[in-house]
């Protein structure tokens, strides 16, 4: 393993190549980690070699289970019970970490190397104030003067841009928001002025706007303190924004490494290429409707792949060739003679020559497309908080205020916003899990196929079409009904009606796909049971008919029928999510609400689910309400977009128009903040500060005023913003946006 094409670090490279060889801060050389359990041992990491120069940021990416976090733990020598370092060396500042005594290690950890974990709440002690936890760090590492330590802690809280650092010292972790907590964790990590900062998915649980701010902060602090960073993430976008170099890990092996630019511009390994190809285009014109197909990576990472002699990616690779790929270990080889860009693939030339598979674009023509199936009008949900002894305390949470929008057959209505913006509340109100307090949601029946709304142009196919005549305007409830439809019998009010009070048919017509693949299926039931039950219960099929229908459903979501007898825990996350889609389809619904359907999945499987949802829309009968914080996905899928903030819709319109100027300042900030898998993408110009105001306050003015970079002093906080209209596109903002006619709310 040692004589692989690894970069040689002990002596300078012949031509004085790019990498700082002798001065590396951290060097991993042929690292191998094994897990020894009762059921034998398995290789977790194998031949992982890279180095990080002082002040450099190295990104480590890969899907879950590939060993990213194990690398971080190995560097700190924090490998848990059952894990052992079997091969290779870890050199920190030239010294072998494995050979260090306990005392040396203690001096190293938290002092020279610091770590930031994904979940800030579990990194902070809930019973200690922020201040005490921060002061502890220098006191542990040699500082004797408590006053000095305190002064440093306050200074550091300022460095991580926390407001009112002195007051912050006295607060407890639970009094801070997630973004603030992560800043505290970063401050704590930087207190000892470490040479190396290991960040394990530091922004994964955070909103895009908070994420952008944290990434900004890390970049800034890195420049200031010269800290080297090992940045572990599954999100290629964040890595592209922050890192200089990248390593792609697959099944415990580094399959590609190089500078960010090289790897993103000319990915060499099929896995890296697959990962990048699986992402929705972030530069192409807004596609909408998911008619363009993404290219997922087939299959899943299996535990057995780690033990393969040859390429671990071979079972999922489209370029696999048995002799070259599977018989012998494959070394990291330089890509096109470039010593800094290397990939572990024996068929680099073939892979490089292969064109990325063309993304098929599906023709879309269906009779019902564009008909409004669900119209929301000023839908609101208020929670009255109960005080002591069960009396109302007078305080209320305004989770959803005056939401008006429409979901159309064959189209996707995307709802975007940060957490707390009310998008999930909206989903629950429509699904009936929580009834709305006021307003209306009207579920309509699609007109029979004969009455096709005359040749309406598709947004995606005719970006020039600005005025959408078929569109029902948000603030005009009732609006135009599709021709040949009698309003009375064909529509039903569901907004304030809980799911228990709805008619069985209404229940059947609205289905939901949930976010978390772990809790979407009952772990006690087989897949077959999960699919058979809705068929029998909602469509009243006989046992035999249901069985046949289950097979059809499985085919429709592209799952093999032999999975039917399995339990959910025997399926991968992507497979579970497909079953969830199949379950939603079982009752032949008219409307599917997908609440963050792919956010818990690995990039390589996300694409397949996104494609599946896109395919569902092709029939033209089904409307999809997509709730997502991922603007790349929304851009790819949505025909209509509603941007929500603090329970209100701030911008709504056809996707092609929402993603083009003029923007609501919040939409603009969201778009800027979204991490893009492109090293050339400019850093976000607008980074939102602060947090969303508490939803318990009834604000007189615009909810976004407290964070808006374009706020008009004295106006925005006091008055409700008018809804400006640009054709079918509406923006609720005080600012004069070019070309808009103002209507009052």
């Amino acid at each position, binding site marked *: 393993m040692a004589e692989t094409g690894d970069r040689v670090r002990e002596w300078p490279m012949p031509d004085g190549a790019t990498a700082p060889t002798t001065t590396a801060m951290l060097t991993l050389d042929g690292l191998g980690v094994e897990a020894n359990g009762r059921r034998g041992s398995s290789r977790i990491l194998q031949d992982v070699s890279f180095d990080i120069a002082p002040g450099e940021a190295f990104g480590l990416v890969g899907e879950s289970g590939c060993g990213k976090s194990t690398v971080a733990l190995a560097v700190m020598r924090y490998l848990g019970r059952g894990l052992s370092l079997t091969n290779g060396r870890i050199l920190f500042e030239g010294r072998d970490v494995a050979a260090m005594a306990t005392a040396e290690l203690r001096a190293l950890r938290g002092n020279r190397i610091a770590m930031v974990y994904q979940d800030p709440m579990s990194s902070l002690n809930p019973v200690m104030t922020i201040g005490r936890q921060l002061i502890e760090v220098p006191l542990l590492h040699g500082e004797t003067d408590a006053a000095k330590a305190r002064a440093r802690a306050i200074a550091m809280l300022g460095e991580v841009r926390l407001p009112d650092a002195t007051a912050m010292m006295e607060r407890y972790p639970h009094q801070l928001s997630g973004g603030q907590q992560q800043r505290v964790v970063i401050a704590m990590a930087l207190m000892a002025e470490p040479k190396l900062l290991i960040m394990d998915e530091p922004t994964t649980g955070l909103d895009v706007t908070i994420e952008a701010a944290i990434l900004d902060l890390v970049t800034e602090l890195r420049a200031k303190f010269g800290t080297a960073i090992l940045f572990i993430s599954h999100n290629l976008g964040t890595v592209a924004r922050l890192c200089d170099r990248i390593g792609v890990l697959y099944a415990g092996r580094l399959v590609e490494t190089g500078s960010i630019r090289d790897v993103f511009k000319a990915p060499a390994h099929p896995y890296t290429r697959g990962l990048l190809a699986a992402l929705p285009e972030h530069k192409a014109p807004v596609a909408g409707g998911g008619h363009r197909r993404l290219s997922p990576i087939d299959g*899943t990472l299996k535990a057995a792949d780690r033990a393969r002699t040859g390429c671990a990616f071979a079972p999922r690779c489209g370029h696999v060739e048995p002799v070259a790929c599977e018989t012998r270990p494959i070394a990291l080889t330089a890509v096109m003679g470039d010593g800094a860009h290397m990939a572990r693939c024996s068929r680099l030339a073939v892979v490089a020559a292969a064109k990325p598979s063309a993304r098929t674009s599906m023709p879309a023509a269906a009779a019902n497309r564009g008909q409004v199936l669900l119209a929301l009008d000023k839908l609101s949900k208020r929670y009255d908080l109960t005080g002591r002894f069960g009396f109302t305390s007078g305080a209320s949470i305004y989770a959803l205020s005056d939401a008006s929008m429409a979901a159309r057959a064959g189209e996707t209505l995307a709802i975007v916003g940060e957490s707390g913006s009310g998008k999930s509340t909206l989903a629950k109100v429509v699904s009936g899990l929580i009834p709305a307090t006021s307003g209306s949601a009207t579920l309509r029946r699609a007109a029979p196929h004969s009455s096709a709304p005359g040749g309406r142009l598709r947004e995606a196919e005719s970006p020039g079409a600005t005025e959408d005549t078929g569109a029902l305007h948000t603030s005009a409830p009732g609006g135009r009904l599709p021709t040949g439809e009698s309003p009375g019998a064909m529509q039903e009010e569901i907004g304030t009606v809980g799911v228990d009070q709805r008619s069985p048919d209404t229940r059947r017509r609205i289905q939901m796909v949930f976010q978390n693949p772990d809790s979407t299926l009952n772990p006690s039931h087989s897949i077959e049971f999960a699919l058979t039950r809705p068929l029998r219960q909602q469509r009243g099929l006989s046992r035999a008919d249901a069985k046949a229908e289950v097979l059809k459903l499985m085919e429709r979501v592209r799952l093999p029928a032999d999975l039917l007898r399995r339990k959910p825990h025997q*399926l991968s996350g992507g497979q579970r999510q497909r079953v969830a889609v199949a379950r939603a389809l079982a009752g032949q619904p008219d409307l599917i609400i997908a609440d963050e359907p792919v956010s818990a999945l690995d990039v390589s499987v996300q694409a397949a689910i996104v494609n599946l949802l896109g395919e569902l829309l092709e029939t033209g009968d089904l409307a999809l309400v997509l709730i997502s914080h991922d603007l790349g996905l929304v851009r790819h899928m949505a025909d209509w977009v509603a941007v929500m903030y603090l329970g209100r819709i701030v911008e709504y319109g056809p996707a092609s128009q929402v993603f083009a100027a003029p923007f609501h300042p919040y939409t603009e900030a969201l778009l800027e903040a979204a991490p893009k898998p492109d090293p050339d993408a400019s850093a976000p110009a607008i980074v939102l500060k602060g947090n969303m105001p508490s939803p318990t306050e009834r604000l007189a003015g615009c909810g976004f005023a407290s964070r808006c970079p374009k706020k008009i002093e004295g106006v925005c906080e006091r008055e409700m913003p008018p809804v400006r209209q640009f054709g079918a596109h509406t923006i609720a903002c005080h600012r004069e946006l070019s070309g808009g006619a103002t209507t009052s709310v």
Partner: protein
Amino acid sequence: MTEVLPRLETRDADADVGGTRDPWLAVGLRVLTASPIGTIGGVILLFWAIVALFAPWLTAYPPNRIDYLLIADPYPSRAHWLGVDNLGRDMWSRIAHGARTVLTVAPIAVLTAAILGSILGLLAGYRGGWIDALITRIGDTMLAFPKIILYLIIIAKFGASAFNIIAVIGLTSAPIIARIVRAVTLDVKNRDYVAAARMRGESAAYIMLVEILPNVRGPLIVDFFLRLGYTTIAIGVLGFLGVGLPPPDPDWGGMVKETYGLLFVYPHMTLIPCLAISTLVIGFNFLATGLKEAGQDG
């Protein structure tokens, strides 16, 4: 009946192994072999189960046959492996037949408690509100009484019989089981699959029994075996206090009670039933621990 092992939820790291439903026996075996302590527990229980099941064939004398001639030398001998008791009854036969009573009464009592507790726990957890408050308060009140006093009060009032023992143990254990079931229910009822069931329009009974209850079985099964151990002790205590199963039928607690006066003269008469109780309790506890471990890293 104790060797019947229900299917346990095992978490499989690799999604690709174990394609089809495992045969019932294989799962049982895997659970038993998953942890050494579980295996030991299983072996002990298997021993007692066989003894109980085949007691008439494994013993040479009826358990209640009194032979005063044997009292002269009550110690274990070739004819009487474990000796005889103070009335000259064969100890082995009494222990074996005593196992029958314990292994019938204890599981039925615990099963009663489990069924009652599950229903109450599901109702309290799923319905919430005043139903929850009522069930929880009544349960807490019951738990506030020392159990043994509750046993004595009820049995003194209604008389000592197998049925009353089952009833009293079932009733007093139900609140604890209800508490376990309620806790899991509170967690599970917020899962997406319950929301999906609600959106389908499933009845509350269906959601509680089909969607939630199966997910409680992990903690419930572990608790079931632990509780069998406690119940074995409780039956022993009741027997010792003279309010257990009515004589002359062999009852381990009763055997201790009848002979403990002779502890320093003929120790085997007292110690052997004590040992029987202890091993059975240890067997149940070990198996519960084993099941817990199997559930954790199966």
